[in-house]
């Protein structure tokens, strides 16, 4: 396993974790842009733009793009988050040259108005789809409650209104601003020919004009607000709890992951034993999510509507109960084995390494091996985990409940 890195003259970085024994390779353009980089008039544009990247270029029609990816046998897709937009493919190493040409080309899309209008319908369908599934858009709402006007609270999808109002001109201007080569990393993993990769990247992207892109990273403030939203169509009652957590740059992020695992992993955690194993709740879990300059502890609870009061009280008791029931070394060790095993198992696939290597580079501009991550997890002590839970009290968070009931007392 070897890490390689080179920057093109226009600022585009090419990185790779080369594993000559892998059967496949994975490659992706990681663009440092997402909903946090949008203004009100562009809400949802990052994600919409991700769709538009597959709609054709000066050299290729939309049909050509889809057809060529399929001809390469590529397993490819794209996703947009609050802060990154990623276009990736896993495929056989023999097709490295073609896939770089194709991915590089679609990152300079035509953005034709008629394609924009057609794809707008698909985006509106996607928004409607999520609005029909619990918690019915409340995952966006709670971010606003907790983080206020901090950019991380912006919705990735946008709303039907913001997407309907969006113009092709606004999208083009956003594209110019955000898809500058200095804001893009080409990452690869698996059986990669790195020298060839740099040459292929130069051919595909070397002509992109160098431009700077900036991102605001204001200091987050967290509010603890509670709201009950009535949604008669739901069968179950849902509660979302959101609060601050160590950010992506913080070395406490490992302690935060372990804290979330001890308290709220899907199985074997404190929430699991108190709420799920007993059949009181359908699910109860806690996760840690880290971004540039901000982090989130996100708790999710679903249960029968008539049991929401005791279940929510129990959830808060677990989240705020570390003082009464201190974390034990045994719990910490168990969480470490669990998380470390996940790290190792997922690292066997080049595609998983791609997300790790590329995401890590965008966030921190460092390369971390699997062994580095395992050592960082091993190094976490109980006092680190306690420090995190003291700094980010998990029971002093914003809460939204959604479901048939809103008639309860908090």
């Amino acid at each position, binding site marked *: 396993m070897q890490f390689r890195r080179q920057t093109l003259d226009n600022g585009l970085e090419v990185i790779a974790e080369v594993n000559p*024994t892998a059967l496949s390779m994975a490659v992706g353009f990681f663009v440092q842009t997402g909903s946090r980089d949008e203004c009100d008039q562009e809400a949802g544009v990052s994600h919409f733009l991700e769709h538009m990247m597959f709609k054709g270029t000066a050299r290729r029609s939309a*049909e050509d793009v889809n057809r060529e990816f399929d001809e390469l046998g590529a397993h490819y897709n794209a996703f947009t988050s609050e802060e990154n937009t990623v276009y990736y493919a896993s495929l056989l190493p023999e097709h490295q040259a073609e896939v770089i040409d194709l991915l590089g080309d679609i990152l300079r899309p035509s953005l034709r108005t008629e394609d924009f209008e057609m794809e707008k319908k698909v985006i509106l369908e996607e928004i409607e789809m999520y609005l029909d599934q619990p918690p019915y858009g409340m995952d966006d709402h709670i971010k606003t409650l907790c983080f206020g006007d901090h950019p991380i609270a912006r919705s990735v999808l946008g709303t039907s209104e913001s997407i309907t109002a969006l113009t092709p001109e606004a999208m083009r201007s956003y594209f110019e601003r955000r898809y500058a080569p200095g804001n893009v990393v080409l990452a690869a993993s698996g059986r990669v020919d790195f020298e060839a990769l740099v040459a292929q990247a130069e051919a595909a992207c070397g002509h992109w004009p160098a431009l700077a892109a900036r991102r605001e990273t204001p200091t987050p403030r967290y509010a603890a607000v509670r709201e009950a939203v009535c949604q008669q169509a739901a069968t*179950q009652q849902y509660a979302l709890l959101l609060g601050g957590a160590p950010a992506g740059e913080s070395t406490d992020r490992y302690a935060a992951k372990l804290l979330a695992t001890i308290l709220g992993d899907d199985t074997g955690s404190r929430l699991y034993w108190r709420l799920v194993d007993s059949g009181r709740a359908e699910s109860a879990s806690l996760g840690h999510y880290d971004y540039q300059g901000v982090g989130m502890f996100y708790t999710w609870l679903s249960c029968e509507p008539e049991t929401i009061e005791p279940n929510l009280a129990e959830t808060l008791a677990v989240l705020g109960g570390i003082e009464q029931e201190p974390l034990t070394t045994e719990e910490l060790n168990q969480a470490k084995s669990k998380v470390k095993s996940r790290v190792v198992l997922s690292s066997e696939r080049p595609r998983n390494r791609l997300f790790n290597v590329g995401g890590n580079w965008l966030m921190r501009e460092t390369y971390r091996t699997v062994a580095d991550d395992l050592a960082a997890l091993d190094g976490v002590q109980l006092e680190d985990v306690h420090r995190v839970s003291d700094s980010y009290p998990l029971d002093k968070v914003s809460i939204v409940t959604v479901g048939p009931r809103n008639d309860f007392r908090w």
Partner: protein
Amino acid sequence: MTTIAPPNSPPALSHRLANGLTVIGEPSDAFESAAFTLLTPSGCRYDPDDRLGLASLTCEMMLRGAGSRDSRALVNDLDAMGVEHTETVGISHATFSASSLADSLEPALALYADVVRRPHLPADQLEQGRQVCLQEVYGVEDEPSQKLMNELRRQHYPSPWGRASCGDEAGLNAVTQDEILAFQASHYGPEGSILAVAGRFDWQELLRVAERLFGDWAPTPLTRTPPNRSTTGSRHLPFEGSQCHIGIAYPSVAYRDPEYFQAWSAVGVLSSGMSSRLFTEVREKRGLCYTVYASLQSQVDRAAVLCYAGTTAERAQETLDVTYAELIRLAEGVTVEELGRLKARIKSALILQQESTASRAGTLARDWRHLGRVRSMVEVGELIDAVTADTINAYLAKNPPRDFTMVTLGPEPLRLK
């Protein structure tokens, strides 16, 4: 000439214990991990009609303590060993899957041997286990696409082959402790069970471990439940929401059928990749929906193509019309270009699958269950190489998509034109 098989893929090894348990292995030093899939013939098809959910609840109870471990120790020990695991109940089988670093393979196998052979089935936790299963039934109500596809299978297949293993509220509420004990005793045994292992391990050592853990597992005669052919057909489920969910099923051929790869490739032309027909016609050209797909689902003795499209209610009839037209048009045949793209995707999918021990273990177990043997990668490669546009079209001429079952879920019923 074979073009699909990757290099260095030796055939899988297999061994049948005297009591009927089959052990299959594909050792490889290319991994740090090992994974296993244990199938037991304990699926929901054995649920009595008034106890739907019995197999599921039994499986849930089996994880609440086994051998020397109580419920908590069992989960904690899996965590401490770093074992990623899932347990699911299907139509015919229960599936126990685990993956971990190679060192934990043997202790994880020993733990699951306890689960299937020596579960405590604690009576004092029955109500908790029942609640867990009921929560799953309630949860499906809030996932309209899953609810729709459950109903589509129920309407399309003769009972019990279209059941959803989670059961229903009445069935789960009626299950007694004695019924769980009886189901466990009669449906968990070596006969018809398959243990498939892939990744870093030694085959001879695995056989010794399997003999020690399972060799004295006494066979239980399998109870055969005769299929009870119920009324099937299309239906509409009223649902208040902005979306309409459309499910269409039609009969196909099973994995073990000589024509399976023809049928599978035809469905691939419909729905594999973004240049496939459904994606192109329904989403790309018309923007009718976000999700549309078709897939060939095979049981041992029967198979169906299941299609799904989810869209807003106002555009639902058009979505159905376009989707249905593509199913009908498939009978006219596929082109050489379409098949070429599909084969490129199949080839890389087969190779990517080799990079996951969990996925390999699952495939080995599936092959054995459907075929009674494991197809080598070379053989799979030859079978796929032998598929041509002509062979697919000959298959489609004899077996055009027809005899459709349609289920819709949304504010208004739709019409198949």
